[in-house]
């Protein structure tokens, strides 16, 4: 008989090993799933996990990895602060949209002027837009005790309507023959978030993601603010006793996640997406929640998880086009990953023992 016994301390070895184990289990069960769909499981798994990196077309896919991974990592890093402190910002998608709108609006306002100051101004506007959008649920929670999960989530749909209205109205390209969507920012040099090294996929958003990882790592491990965030998440009462102002912490955590989501939106709209359009957002803000937890809310973990998530996206697209795999199967695979991670997480906190039952 198998029993679980609580460890006195979480095991450091298992907390590193469980994500790897989860990926392996996902590959096995994913393979079984693909086999039942009539696909060759080995070929499919190889297509999803290895082809983006090592196939003959990898020169095209590798930059895509950075382009898809950067917004996920950037948003997930912001969310991880709040999630560690027990503040649940579920509306990063909305903050991402509003950041993109604000940043793009600043850039478009200067069109067609040329100045090196325009792009930095757009970056600031993007961060500020996301921050202010996140302040709505933050302030409502602090002042009136509303639930930030609901408010932030519902504001995503408000942001989507705002996006549609901007694409059709205020920000529509005056020379666009009446088609919805703004001017293409990536063709406006002063406002474009171009690749820093041609063909690498490396744009300013990728740089920002790496900076955010380093910044978050230092803050969480060395700075008092990181200590207070962790303390608040584990024992809110102890945090208050230690002098943490809970309301202020809510605002700061919402602010960080909103600003980083807004930045991700701006880098996307000025670079890979290029313009404000009705279908600008593709769910990075929601997927980043999975990335944050897959990376155990740890900056380095989030970096790896963001890469893995981007890999399954790109690999999934290859599998869809080359092997005719249904898109839903890819989503199932991504869901499986989170599921197995949470399931094997038990090993970090519990020890498995085999033998006779001690407790009835």
């Amino acid at each position, binding site marked *: 008989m198998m029993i679980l*016994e609580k460890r*006195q*301390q*979480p095991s450091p070895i298992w907390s590193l090993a469980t994500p790897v184990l989860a990926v392996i289990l996902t590959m096995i069960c994913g393979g079984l799933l693909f086999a039942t769909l009539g696909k060759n499981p080995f070929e499919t798994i190889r297509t999803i996990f290895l082809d983006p990196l090592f196939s003959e077309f990898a020169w095209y896919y590798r930059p895509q990895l950075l382009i898809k991974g950067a917004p996920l990592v950037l948003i997930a890093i912001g969310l991880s602060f709040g999630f560690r402190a027990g503040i649940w910002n579920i509306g990063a998608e909305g903050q991402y949209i509003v950041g993109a709108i604000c940043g793009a609006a600043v850039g478009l306002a200067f069109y067609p002027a040329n100045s090196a100051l325009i792009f930095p101004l757009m970056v600031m506007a993007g961060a500020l837009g996301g921050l202010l959008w996140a302040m709505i649920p933050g302030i409502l929670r602090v002042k009136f005790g509303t639930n930030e999960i609901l408010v932030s989530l519902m504001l995503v749909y408000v942001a989507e309507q705002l996006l549609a209205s901007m694409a059709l109205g205020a920000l529509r390209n005056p020379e666009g023959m009446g088609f919805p969507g703004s001017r293409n920012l990536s063709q406006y040099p002063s406002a474009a978030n171009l690749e820093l090294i041609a063909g690498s996929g490396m744009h300013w958003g990728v740089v920002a993601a790496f900076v955010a990882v380093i910044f978050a790592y230092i803050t969480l491990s*060395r*700075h*008092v*603010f990181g*200590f207070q965030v*962790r*303390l608040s998440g*584990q*024992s809110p*009462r*102890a*945090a*208050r*006793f*230690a*002098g943490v*102002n809970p309301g202020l912490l809510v605002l700061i955590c919402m602010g960080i996640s909103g600003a980083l989501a807004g930045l991700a939106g701006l880098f996307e709209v000025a670079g890979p997406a290029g313009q404000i359009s009705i279908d600008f957002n593709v769910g990075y803000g929601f997927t980043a929640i999975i990335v944050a937890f897959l990376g155990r809310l740890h900056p380095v973990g989030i970096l790896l998880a963001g890469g893995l998530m981007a890999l399954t996206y790109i690999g999934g697209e290859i599998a869809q086009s080359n092997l005719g795999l249904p898109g839903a199967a890819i989503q199932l695979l991504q869901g499986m990953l989170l599921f197995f991670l949470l399931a094997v997480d038990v090993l970090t906190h519990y020890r498995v023992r085999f033998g006779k*039952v*001690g*407790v*009835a």
Partner: protein
Amino acid sequence: MTDPLLRLSGLTKAYPGVVANCDVSFDIGKGEVHALLGENGAGKSTLVKTIYGLVRPDSGSMTLEGQPFQPAEPRAARAAGVAMVFQHFSLFDALNVAENIALGMENPPPQNAVAAQVRAVSDQYGLPLDPTRIVGELSAGERQRVEIIRCLLQDPKLLIMDEPTSVLTPQEVAILFETLRKLSAEGTAILYISHKLEEIRSLCDNATVLRLGQVVGTCDPRATSARDMAELMVGSVLHVPQKADRPAGDIILSLDGLSAKAPHQFGTALRDITLEVRKGEVLGIGGVAGNGQDELVAALSGEMRTGAGMIRFKGDSIGQLPPNARRKIGLLAAPEERMGHAAAPDMSLTENAIMTAMTRQKLTSRGFVHWAKARRFAQGVITAFDVRTQGPQNTARSLSGGNLQKFVIGREIMQDPDLLVVNQPTWGVDASAAAAIRQALLDLAAKGAAVICISQDLDELMEISDRFAALNEGRLSSPRPAAGLTVEEIGLMLGGAHDMEVAHVDV
């Protein structure tokens, strides 16, 4: 002589790394009140959990009324006639008494039938309790009565009570003992677990002493002194805290009409508390749990802000200052709840040291934590207060209650406070650790700091306090010199606002 009611023979239960019970054997007779004594970690809870069917022993056997007794789960133990009142109550605040009792039944009869049964039992055993009252509004003593009546409705042969008097006033203890004696006279055996040796001496017929999982002795508590029993428990000569006589210093803290609303639904409002505390004195504040102790600590520590001028520390109004600003000027506090309030369970001891010592010990510079310095401070607390742990990297959760309490109190004392507020400093702590904590508080006062010790343990307060005051429904009685106070007078001070006038009568 007939068979005993319950016979334990050679019970052994080992957990990884520790033997909780080793070859424990003793008998409990019908109608006997049997005390189970031992320090924390001596194996008392494992033993009663075995009897109650929560733990299955590795070896050994039990017989109940001559029949083999091996309860696989508490339900089986209850069916066989074993009932237990736990130290921590399992009641729903929002439901009334009868509803709470019905919830624990296998096939509950209609509500008014339950209420009638509750009334009948409470009359029979002299435990006043109204079945229609909401549990959230009951005192701790009344809540305990709910648990006891829940057990008595099963008509038990053996009633196990785990530290039942830790939350009661002396008057409530008297009522409880009356009930227990009545039960015992009717033939119900009682297994009574307590740290309070004087109570055991007045109530119990026999005592079994456990140390490190083994029975180290049995005695007749009526013929043995409390000190002898304590030394049997500890296994060494007990060190009794020494109180030095010292002149009172200047006023360091004054509360002037301190009032505050209850912070949550089941909290207590503070009402017009006026008090002066001087350097070098220990002020003991007694009272039954839930009468404003947590709120008073929160108002002093800075977790709860109060109006201007209500709290003055060294002459300055500090009611609006947050916790760390108060720590900076020398006001430190240690709240009652160790896990999750005074300490974060899943964080290391180093991190727990940073929690409150950050400001005074300068464990940060420009916002960055000095981990090495914090580790040294935590190690210092561990060494100075004999905290049993492998080192400061261990989590707070991995420590036993007593050791964590030593760490929490030590963390504040090592910061040299000018005024230290402690709430229940020795709750659930074994005798020798409790003596060490009390001695540390007295030493702190001897160095010239003021100490406010809030506790429900009157013996403790009498042992260390210079002056004593009682907290009742958020009101504080005026403090009186502790020396010479009788139990009756203290009981009246604790008894309620209406009796306050009586309490003012001088000795």
